[in-house]
């Protein structure tokens, strides 16, 4: 079908993917490859966040809890039980999904700021508890100090590699899977239900859409994916601690990328990560430790500008531009003009 071939996802996504695939052949410097991997990682995490929040229209600032939980599970299953991190990753992701359903069930009854504040509270409870717990039921959690992944023989089995290239391609593969999942969601019954809930929760309920169940399904998938990302992070840095992996800064960063890029779209979060993460890397490289909060000042300013002038994210003007250039089919006109219906 020509629509699918000419959607913005394809027009923009396929060239980006091609560039991402060949980039490691031209970039040899370890630091640059590390930064590129981090961009892919953040694009993945922002997309995982977008999977529920972008489509349901609720703002979670507590997604760090899923990343941290799965990361800790992966590291602990490896160090304590000798599980391969690949299985640990899946186990951690499942754990995150189960936690998401338990937390999400009561929480989705709340809307707007109430929902957001509760997600923060949940994540902060877990972070504070972890930071102050050295041992829990015989499991060494090491509190604020965090856990180190012990080095071993390199190889796929233990998820430890020489150099950055394998990590880069793993992150890229995860991102592609995440984006394909989002494309499937957009065309699935679940995706339409979620959009209906976002547009008008009461109207959707009147038509028989179980909003809580749809939201929970999306949240479980999102938490699972976020968990996989958290496990990847732990393996990539071979280190995990409550502040970096469970802190509010991580939650805000990923949410911010999705929002600035364009939530509720397939490629928006990727654009957000492409736009924002380099700012953090560049300020760190240029100013070192001299201005510790500089990139967050810029993030905050960009967020404010985006909310005021690009409420649909930077992907919206890009979409218009591509349409004008004839590279993309215009969106079908809505059957009814929404504004006319409103009193």
């Amino acid at each position: 079908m020509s629509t699918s071939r000419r959607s913005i996802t394809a027009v923009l996504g396929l060239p980006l993917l091609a560039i991402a695939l060949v980039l490691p052949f031209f970039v040899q410097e370890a630091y640059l490859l590390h930064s590129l991997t981090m961009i892919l990682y953040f694009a993945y995490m922002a997309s995982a966040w977008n999977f529920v929040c972008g489509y349901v229209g609720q703002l979670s600032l507590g997604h760090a809890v899923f990343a941290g939980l799965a990361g800790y599970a992966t590291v602990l299953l490896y160090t304590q039980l000798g599980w391969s991190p690949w299985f640990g990753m899946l186990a951690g992701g499942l754990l995150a999904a189960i936690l998401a359903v338990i937390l999400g069930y009561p929480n989705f009854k709340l809307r707007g700021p109430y929902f957001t504040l509760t997600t923060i509270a949940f994540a902060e409870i877990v972070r504070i508890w972890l930071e102050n717990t050295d041992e829990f039921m015989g499991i060494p959690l090491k509190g604020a100090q965090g856990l180190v992944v012990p080095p071993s023989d390199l190889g796929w089995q233990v998820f430890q590699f020489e150099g950055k290239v394998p990590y880069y391609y793993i992150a890229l593969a995860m991102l592609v899977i995440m984006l394909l999942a989002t494309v499937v969601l957009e065309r699935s019954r679940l995706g339409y239900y979620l959009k209906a809930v976002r547009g008008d929760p009461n109207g959707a309920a009147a038509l028989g859409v179980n909003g809580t169940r749809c939201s929970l399904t999306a949240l479980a998938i999102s938490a699972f994916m976020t968990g996989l990302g958290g496990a990847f992070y732990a393996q990539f840095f071979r280190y995990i601690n409550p502040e970096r992996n469970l802190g509010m800064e991580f939650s805000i960063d990923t949410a911010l990328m999705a929002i600035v890029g364009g939530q509720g779209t397939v490629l928006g979060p990727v654009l957000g990560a492409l736009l924002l993460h380099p700012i953090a890397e560049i300020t760190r490289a240029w100013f070192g430790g001299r201005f510790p909060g500089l990139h967050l000042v810029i993030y905050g300013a960009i967020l404010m500008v985006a909310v005021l002038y690009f409420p649909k994210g930077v992907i919206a003007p890009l979409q218009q531009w591509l349409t004008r250039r004839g590279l993309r089919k215009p969106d079908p006109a809505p059957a009814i003009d929404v504004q006319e219906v409103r009193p």
Partner: protein
Amino acid sequence: MDPLILLYAVVNGLLLGGIYGGIALGLSLIFGVLRVINFAHGSFLMVAMYASWGLWAAFGWHPYASVVVTVPFLYLLGYFTQSVVIAPLIRRESTLVVEPLGALLLTTGLYLVLDNLVLMGFGPDVRSANVEFASGSLLVAGLPVNIPRLIGCAAGVLVAAALWWALRHTDSGRAIRATAQNREAAALSGVDIQRVYNHTFGIGAAILGLFGALLTPFLSLTPTVGQMFGVKSFLVVVLGGIGSIPGSILGGLLLGVFESVASQYVTATSAAIFSFGLFIAVLLFRPNGLLGRKI
């Protein structure tokens, strides 16, 4: 548990609770009128504290004297936050589909900017103002009462009473209440909505100017000092009922005593966990707070 220690914990909790309540007043007022959750609330308090500390460090002013600067300064900061940053969003929302998260995101951005600007300017070091006047403790019936905290608590109750009175008996107070009840009807009656919004945001922030100065004598400053108060303010207004002035003080006192007594039994960090747990429980089971919504 020794009853005297418990009594001491309760008294200390009440003192701290009055301060919590006073700090939360602005958050509650702004939400009640504008329906905006100011995520940068704690950052405003932090800015006020740094202003007060700066006047002490540069000119040797007692933090209490610095209120003549911090209160107008914070009023202006709040006024311009509303008129420059938030007003365009509200103007857009009044014509289009309402996006309640927009304001939350805007103030999240403001929080990131303010906290990290101060971090860049002053570094992560801990700072404190050492002053003699009005420090130390009084002995009341054998219990030591910390003077700066007593002053802070009294200020919380007084400001709440003054605000409550002003909202009922002054022209601008009536305009604020009318706007909170029905924005369109108030506008039709000749109330300048934008001005009321700016003024309300200014007052909400000005109260933080006062408390920033009152906290500085006994609290160390870091760029993240506001975050803890911001989160506690949300807790206080949720406890007391968002938009309610007496509820804010009541919620503050409840939280203060809860924290203070809990930390006698468990460690302070576990007490913080219980506070968050209380927050979630109240939101889930009594989302309108203990006193409901009223302004």
